[in-house]
């Protein structure tokens, strides 16, 4: 598999100004040195708890947020260095589906306009063939064509998420960021959207960065999984390997905390103590040491580097030094 998108030491620090005339400046290290590759046609799952930087990372990977430093190489081109006209020609190749199907559609636009606008902007359709192109895409995501002249408020959450998917797919992207696309939906609707994403991905072999806090969904959908904690990737592995042989204590804790739908599988694990520390003041050394059951003195002072356990299985933890 060849790499489509390559993220190199990406950082995003959000400055926080405090004090008289904002003289003291601290920063929230939302993403703190992340490197990741996504291959052609690969679904990479990105899991982590709220505030760990998943969304910031996803948005930086398509240049919706400017990183503080680092590189995003898309098909051989560093998209962070591009000027606006060349970025615009690349935009159709990178699309995003948002978490909130209620907030991400313009309430004053009809479905036709929501889905079709980007095609007109990028010259993929004109006024004459717009209707037929929109109809084609709507069919792809399972929306009846009769919905074309309706407005977002007339739809349920699942249908709105289909509109969001249709909008992203209208430009034939090669890379798609899915930022918690199903977490606002009910279970029975979630499965419809997951199946739809899976079918579309198989048909069009799009590369997907699938951001979620739901480990079951990520496990079901993604080929490879990356686990994020306080702005850093602590473990990456093929999804099957990760679920069987999780190496990082945080990954193991996450997997153990996930309630199983099999009542016979009793949960006799000890829950992880404490809260996720504030990214404004992350702990020194390994960020996870304050909650880690296996922490040693070394973890408190020295930040672990990334170790290669097996081919395609990396972990950031002193246990594997």
């Amino acid at each position, binding site marked *: 598999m060849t790499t489509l998108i390559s993220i190199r030491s990406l950082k995003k620090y959000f400055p926080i100004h405090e004090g008289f005339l904002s003289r003291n400046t601290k920063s929230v290290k939302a993403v703190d040195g992340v490197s990741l590759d996504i291959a052609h046609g690969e679904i990479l799952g990105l899991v982590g708890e709220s505030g760990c930087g998943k969304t910031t990372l996803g948005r930086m990977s398509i240049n919706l947020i400017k990183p503080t430093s680092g590189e995003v190489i898309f098909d051989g081109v560093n998209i962070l260095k591009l000027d606006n006209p060349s970025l615009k020609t690349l935009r159709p190749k990178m699309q995003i589906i948002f978490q909130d199907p209620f907030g991400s559609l313009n309430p004053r636009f009809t479905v036709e306009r929501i889905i079709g606008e980007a095609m007109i902007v990028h010259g993929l359709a004109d006024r004459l063939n717009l209707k037929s192109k929109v109809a084609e895409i709507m069919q792809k995501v399972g929306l009846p064509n009769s919905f074309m002249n309706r407005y977002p408020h007339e739809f349920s959450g699942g249908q709105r998420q289909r509109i969001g998917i249709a909008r992203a797919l209208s430009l034939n992207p090669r890379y798609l960021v899915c930022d918690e696309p199903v977490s606002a939906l009910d*279970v*029975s609707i979630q499965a419809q959207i997951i199946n739809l994403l899976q079918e579309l991905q198989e048909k069009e072999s799009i590369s997907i960065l699938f951001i979620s806090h739901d480990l079951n969904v990520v496990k*079901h959908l993604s080929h490879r999984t990356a686990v994020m904690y306080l702005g850093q990737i602590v473990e990456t592995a093929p999804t099957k390997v990760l679920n069987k042989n999780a190496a990082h204590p945080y990954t193991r804790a996450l997997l153990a905390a996930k309630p199983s739908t099999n009542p016979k599988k009793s949960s006799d694990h000890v829950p992880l103590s404490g809260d996720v520390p504030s990214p404004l003041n992350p702990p020194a050394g390994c960020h996870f040491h304050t909650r880690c059951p296996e922490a040693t003195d070394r973890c408190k002072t020295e930040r672990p580097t990334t170790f290669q356990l097996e081919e395609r299985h990396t972990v950031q933890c002193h246990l594997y030094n």
Partner: protein
Amino acid sequence: MPTIPPLLHIENLTTSFQSNDTVVQAVRGINLRVNHAEILAIVGESGCGKSVTALSILRLISMPPGRFDSGKIKFNNHDLLSLSEADMQKVRGNDISMIFQEPMTSLNPIFTIGDQIGEAIIQHQSTTGAEARKQTLELLYKVSIPSPEIRIDQYPHELSGGMKQRVMIAIAIACRPTLLIADEPTTALDVTIQDQILNLLSSLKEDSEMSILLITHNLGIVAQFADRVTVMYSGKIVEEATVDSLFENPMHPYTRGLLNSLPKDDNESKLEPISGAVPHPAFLPKGCAFHPRCKDAMPRCQQQPPLTSATKENTHKVACWLYEEWVEDPQ
């Protein structure tokens, strides 16, 4: 059949809301028992009436637009719906208490958490401020809040989401209720924090022998923490069983559909979603409300709402015409 009367017994409860010209029945004639020292889970998708059921028990439905059309809610054999407001106020927080989904917005931002826990104690027990503070510290310790002596004088914004939910639990258990209603207590929290809170709730339940009515949409939580479970759809209970029985042998097509919609632990097969969407509560289909989405629907399902039938041992009940030959629910 249990000879001890259940702690809570809801009989034929219907709660509806009037909006302009339409009447929406959010809860449509449900029967429900919560036994002593058990965790009963209510599962269902948004809008199925699970929260309205919980709010009805505590009579926290604002009237109008809400109203009770029929039914009884017997708590320790007293009908809560016939109590005066003053008597009901004594039940709330004292015998039955509730934790809400949103710990972020359920606490008052301008009072310290010590004040807010103490308020519940002073309200229901005739104690002094100093005694209430002592009890508050004990409660904070009980819900495992680190350094309670400092936390007691802090404001909600100084606490994380998980901590706030612990404070909510402390308020809820302050007067040692016999029934705790937990409405989606962990939905707003991260998995590792959810794990902590659920462990806390089940250990509190073990210690004090209270019953918990756990409302959730997460079937994993039901499987791991509840003793019995009821499944709601469009204001009705469609299935009720022990947790083991429900997950091993789901009967109602909706329950089966829900379980098939979930990514499995050890199975990579394609998900089987339920087609369509939940109907609008003001425009429910005739007959069984689930029939437009049901794979096993028969002509009869479009006409008549199904009766509830039960297995011989009365351990598993289901409201579906597929199980007509069963015993009629002895409820």
